[in-house]
């Protein structure tokens, strides 16, 4: 039954403008990029890759800079579009008139909730792998450059979005309109990096009391470390190493906790 909910969430995403824009962009980016990439050989027979009307670069350098560009788009502009596309999908089945139809059916409420969460995440992940994955696979096919680091980095990026989505889902349980989860996502996008750098940004002048600092420390520990995950993905793409696993497992704990709490709120919710 959860499969039916996931399928319906994906179908609804195409109907909604934000979802449609995400899908259209994720198709346009690879078409544009692949159209720009020129693969050829130097006079001494070495493989060279270039963008249209630009200087040629060694294959490895070109691939890394392209992958990094795609990853940066995925971690910034794509998150923005993903938030707008996902928020209505998390909320639409809770709207008056629609909830009566769906909640009264024989599917447990937690499955309805998780189906919409997974559906929204599948939409985002698919768009990322279309937008970034297709040009990457094209480069690999034409030049033989390794995709391993890029794929792992893209997965970390999707994982960071799943944490953002879990936060939005939690907000959706108490909200009556999708504006609330969108607002929360943007607030957290702004404050997340500040929390990560709290000792340098807050503790000197703004929060000087021990209690205040203790509170902010715990807030940082509990909330997802999306900005650190973005840095981790970039680092992994560059060097193939993960400096610290702390942002990963603490964010995974947050996702599990937020989803469990959302399922419980959904179970208790009145319609």
């Amino acid at each position: 039954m959860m499969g039916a909910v996931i399928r319906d969430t994906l179908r609804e995403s195409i109907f909604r403008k934000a979802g449609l824009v995400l899908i259209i962009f994720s198709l346009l980016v690879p078409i544009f990029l692949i159209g720009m990439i020129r693969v050829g050989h130097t006079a001494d027979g070495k493989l060279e890759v270039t963008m249209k009307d630009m200087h040629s670069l060694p294959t490895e350098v070109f691939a890394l800079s392209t992958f990094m560009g795609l990853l940066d788009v995925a971690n910034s502009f794509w998150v923005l579009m993903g938030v707008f596309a996902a928020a209505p999908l998390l909320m639409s089945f809770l709207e008056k008139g629609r909830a009566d139809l769906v909640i009264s059916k024989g599917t447990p409420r937690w499955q309805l909730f998780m189906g919409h969460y997974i559906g929204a995440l599948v939409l985002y992940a698919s768009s990322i792998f279309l937008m970034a994955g297709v040009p990457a696979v094209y480069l690999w096919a034409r030049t033989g450059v390794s995709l391993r680091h890029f794929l792992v980095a893209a997965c970390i990026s999707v994982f960071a979005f799943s944490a953002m989505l879990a936060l939005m889902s939690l907000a959706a349980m108490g909200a009556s309109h999708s504006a609330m989860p969108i607002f929360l996502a943007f607030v957290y996008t702004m404050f997340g990096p500040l929390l990560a750098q709290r000792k340098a940004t807050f503790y000197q002048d703004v929060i000087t009391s021990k209690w205040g600092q203790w509170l902010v420390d715990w807030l940082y520990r509990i909330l997802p470390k999306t900005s650190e995950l973005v840095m981790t993905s970039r680092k992994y793409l560059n060097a193939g190493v993960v400096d610290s696993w702390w942002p990963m497992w603490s964010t995974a704990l947050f996702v599990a906790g937020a989803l469990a709490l959302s399922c419980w709120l959904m179970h208790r919710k009145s319609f």
Partner: protein
Amino acid sequence: MSAELAVQTQDLEMTYREMWRKPARALAGVSLEVERGVIFGLLGQNGAGKTTLVKLLLSLLRPTKGTARVLGRDPFDARTRRRIGYLPEQMRLPEYMKAHSFLRYMGELNGVKSATLNTRIPALLELVGLPGEKKVLSAYSKGMQQRLGLAQALLNEPDLLFLDEPTEGLDPLGRKQVRDLLVSLRAGGKTIFLNSHLLSEIELVCDRVVILNRGAVVRQGTPAEFAKHTGEYRVRLAEAGDAVRAAVESVVPGARWENSTVYLSPANRAQLNAMIDRLRAVPVEIETVEPVHSTLEEYFIQVVTGEGT
């Protein structure tokens, strides 16, 4: 709590509590029992608590106090809800779907197998008068939406059907079709919980009726019990010219007239017969004599306005 009953509630209370607002009590200790295989009518003014009661029975709301059992089980158990069909009053259909995909999704949510849906969906669309409908749901009229809503409520072949204003937006023919459908479902052993403002419809199809007023059950019985004899008799005359009217006035002074019909209010049947004998002696030609019963609507108005208490 009996498993033989379709619906059973005990002291069911519901108070809506919202931040910054005074608590609003919607149900005040409702206890009722609905047997299986009947059409049960729920009557009440706007705000009487009808929709709240239905939502509690469907686990859309949690009661403040009291218990509810549906088909002998807890309505919060998803397996219970798979045996229930529900047509909400305010229904918002997903605009991006067509009738077939919408019904498939609703069926899947109720755990109906795909192969079963393949045969049942076209049959139900035919039944509700939407065969081969290809439009997206956003282009549906209110009547079409209502028909589709009815189809989705029947998709899992439910043992218990909750219908909130099922004939809303339907033309007279559509209403008749819905009434006939309800009667045939009852004949098939289904229980129907009908919530409607159209008292004439309730009167036509329901086996039992409950009247809710300010969140409490104020009356329950059969429509026949509610439609009591008023004590008046309707006497239809062959003609009611001035001479006839004067003759009747001389026998029954102050009688109420309606064209060629006169209403008599005798103290008992013997007095009625005496009145008729005297009219016949005038002579006044009588076509029919019939007792006047109050309609369910009249009874309902008496109850909710307190005139009948």
